[in-house]
């Protein structure tokens, strides 16, 4: 079970990192809210707004980038597989065209 989890984590590291960034963003948002709500002075609220709110926005952006990157990387891997197969088919057909045996050619 643990090994399987680690295997999934290694293969899906970008999605796992996106999840971690999302959780960190929520934590930063809650911490910022708590900090602001516990003070009555405007001058003490602004640092919480920056360290909590803006940090949460940045972390949310990072989570989005990681998740989108994972999707793009999956699509790229799929394309590379198809390209590799096409290359192989061309090479196979070329060698058949050069006079090698072929069971497939009509």
């Amino acid at each position: 079970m643990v090994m399987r989890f680690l295997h999934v984590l290694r293969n899906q590291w970008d999605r796992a990192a996106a999840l971690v960034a999302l959780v960190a963003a929520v934590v930063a948002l809650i911490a910022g809210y708590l900090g602001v709500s516990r003070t009555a002075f405007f001058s003490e609220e602004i640092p919480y707004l920056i360290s909590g709110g803006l940090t949460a926005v940045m972390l949310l952006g990072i989570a989005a980038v990681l998740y989108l990157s994972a999707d793009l990387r999956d699509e790229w891997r799929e394309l590379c597989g198809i390209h590799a197969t096409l290359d192989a088919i061309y090479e196979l057909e070329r060698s058949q065209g050069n006079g090698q045996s072929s069971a497939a050619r009509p």
Partner: protein
Amino acid sequence: MTLSQLSDVLTARGARTAARPREAAAADPLQVLIAELGPHDVARLSRLVRQRQRRRTELWSATELLVLLGGLAAGAVILLGAWIGASGTSRYSSLVGWAAFGVAAPAVAGVAAASWILSGIKTIRRETAEMGARVTELAAGRDNGESAPIQARRAVPTILSSEEFVASKGMTRFHRPDCLMVSGKPVTAASVLAHRSAGRVPCGMCLPSC
């Protein structure tokens, strides 16, 4: 990727690209071709596929990665500076100024992130278009009862390696001047040596190195 996986992928891709009938229609002949291969050819094809998959290139270049990391790092530094600045003052005007400065952090990081995602999408679109053209050409060759490389070599006399082939700046392959892959594209001619030193490989369709 096994042949059955390839077949699944092509079927799924054909369904997803229903709005692009050229690619969807071209997927079927490729599956027919694979189905027609004998056991010996299938084994050889699988071996060739594995060899080529090892040569896979990355979706993003090192420069693009540096731009992303640089943007994120700049955002973090701006955020830290704004927080330190805002913590050290109690004047209203200064606080508003530091808060406005802090807003620049997600903006800078956002621009870097958008650049990263857009460059990835652009590369994938380019590769998909190239693949569609290759599959179409393969299908055309099958329709005539000949493989595409054989057709290409019959149509175009063998060119010596000292002659020039064409490619454009962003291409990863170089082509014969009359290759369908570069038809209508702004390309420049160069020698095989120049293309290879630029990291390009011969086009699998027009076989410029044959």
